[in-house]
């Protein structure tokens, strides 16, 4: 390892930081509804997910051949500076969406970052536009539709089959089933996403001449990538877990099971058939589908709308940040140092901002995120049949719109009580 230059070292550390934010960001995909239905305690859920991510990192035999799946032309002159700039953009966007509590694809952030950095450093010939459509746009558009339809149908079916049964009695079974589905999603995540970081580090090592081209990643790369993603998963992006588990729709055990099983099935089926769909979009779509599948279930469309906006922005925004970073990093050593300092500064600022309204394992289930009932939500509630048993919404006879008002006011007043920072400081 004596040949590792400072720059390669910085790229490796940055890649591991990205890996960490990746785990941090994607815990919600596997565990959000598992936590919100009470199938598992928050800490236990993220611990299980972390272990499975770690196991997944070691399971996969085949290392990602190209870090970007052919979107950027890695032979066209991708230098460590470009990879570094790409990673910084991806990390910044991951942290920003985490602050907003929005699930967005870490892969898209990485692709966007690499595309932006490549465009600036190499030029347009370094990026394959067709591949962006094939590998990013279509999988992202198809994912929530496929998962949503599957979860809606499954939710309808399971409510029909279990009709007349006591919900308390069946909940135990649903929760057990949900744990199995969530475990599969976690394991699949570990095999996929830890690989990307291994690919990035291996590419950096190859470009630096430390290891021969086409060689397998050294063991320490596998171990550190696995540990970084597991640590990120364990620390848990509670903000995103809250949005996905509570914010989009109210999830009951039967719905959680249907959503989680749908997500696991779609992820595995799509990667097996060879048309991999975006995991984040699959999981979010499945949760929305489960929300639509229950009679009286309400999807908060304003939250869903913000989520979709974040999805659309992920690639260009990460690309923009990385493009700027690449411009700076191309200036030489001081530029790289400036990017590193700026990246740390922005990350620190985002973290500080998150401290103002911390979301932790303690309060992840306690409150709905601040969510004024948007116009679309109100309209959908007016059209949809009113909930039969709406605990927070007062008597059903008050009408759907009246029922929506108290929910909204509670949500805006009580996202975090002043007592929380003490718990969060630990």
């Amino acid at each position, binding site marked *: 390892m004596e040949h590792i230059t400072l720059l390669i070292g910085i790229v490796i550390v940055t890649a591991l930081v990205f890996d960490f934010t990746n785990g941090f960001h994607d815990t919600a995909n596997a565990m959000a509804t598992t936590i919100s239905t009470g199938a598992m305690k928050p800490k236990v859920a993220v611990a299980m997910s972390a272990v499975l991510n770690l196991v997944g990192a070691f399971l996969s035999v085949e290392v990602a051949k190209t870090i970007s799946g052919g979107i950027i032309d890695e032979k066209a002159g991708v230098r460590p500076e470009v990879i570094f700039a790409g990673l910084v953009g991806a990390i910044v966007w991951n942290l920003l969406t985490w602050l907003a509590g929005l699930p967005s694809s870490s892969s898209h952030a990485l692709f966007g970052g690499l595309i932006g950095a490549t465009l600036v450093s190499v030029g347009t010939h370094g990026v394959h536009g067709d591949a962006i459509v094939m590998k990013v746009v*279509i999988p992202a558009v198809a994912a929530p539709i496929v998962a949503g339809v599957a979860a809606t149908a499954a939710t309808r079916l399971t409510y029909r*089959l279990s009709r007349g*049964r006591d919900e308390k009695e069946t909940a135990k079974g649903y929760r057990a089933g949900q744990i199995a589905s969530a475990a*599969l999603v976690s394991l699949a995540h570990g*095999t996929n996403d830890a690989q990307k970081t291994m690919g990035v580090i291996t590419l950096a090592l190859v470009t630096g001449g430390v290891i021969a081209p086409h060689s397998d990643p050294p063991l320490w790369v596998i171990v550190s990538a696995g540990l970084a993603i597991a640590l990120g998963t364990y620390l848990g992006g509670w903000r995103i877990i809250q949005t996905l588990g509570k914010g989009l729709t109210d999830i009951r055990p039967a719905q959680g099971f249907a959503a989680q*099983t749908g997500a696991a*099935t779609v992820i595995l089926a799509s990667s097996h058939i060879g048309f991999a769909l975006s995991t984040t979009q699959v999981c979010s779509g499945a949760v929305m589908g489960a929300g639509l599948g229950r009679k009286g279930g309400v999807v908060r469309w304003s939250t869903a709308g913000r989520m979709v906006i974040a999805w659309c922005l992920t690639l260009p925004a990460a690309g923009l940040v990385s493009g700027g970073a690449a411009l700076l990093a191309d200036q030489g050593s001081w530029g790289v140092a400036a990017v590193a300092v700026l990246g740390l500064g922005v990350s620190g600022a985002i973290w500080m901002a998150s401290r103002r309204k911390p979301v932790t394992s303690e309060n992840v289930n306690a409150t709905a995120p601040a969510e004024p009932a948007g116009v679309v939500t109100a309209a959908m509630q007016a059209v949809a049949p009113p909930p039969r048993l709406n605990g927070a919404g007062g008597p059903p006879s008050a009408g759907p719109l009246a029922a929506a008002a108290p929910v909204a006011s509670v949500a805006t007043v009580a996202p975090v009580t002043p007592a929380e920072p003490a718990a969060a400081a630990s």
Partner: protein
Amino acid sequence: MHIDWVALGQVFGVSVLMTVGLVGVFTLGIVGTSGSSRSVAARAGAYACYALCAAAVAYGIVLIVGK
């Protein structure tokens, strides 16, 4: 640009069928085991449903590992 609509259609069909099938089978298992006055046949059927789901999970692990 070539978009593989057939593969996408397959993903859609397989995903929906498998999800609905698995959730349905598992729900039958829950219905068969919940409640105390269930007959032996219902319980046996329920356990068969659970076994089928367990097999599906095992197949899922095989798909993940064997990639």
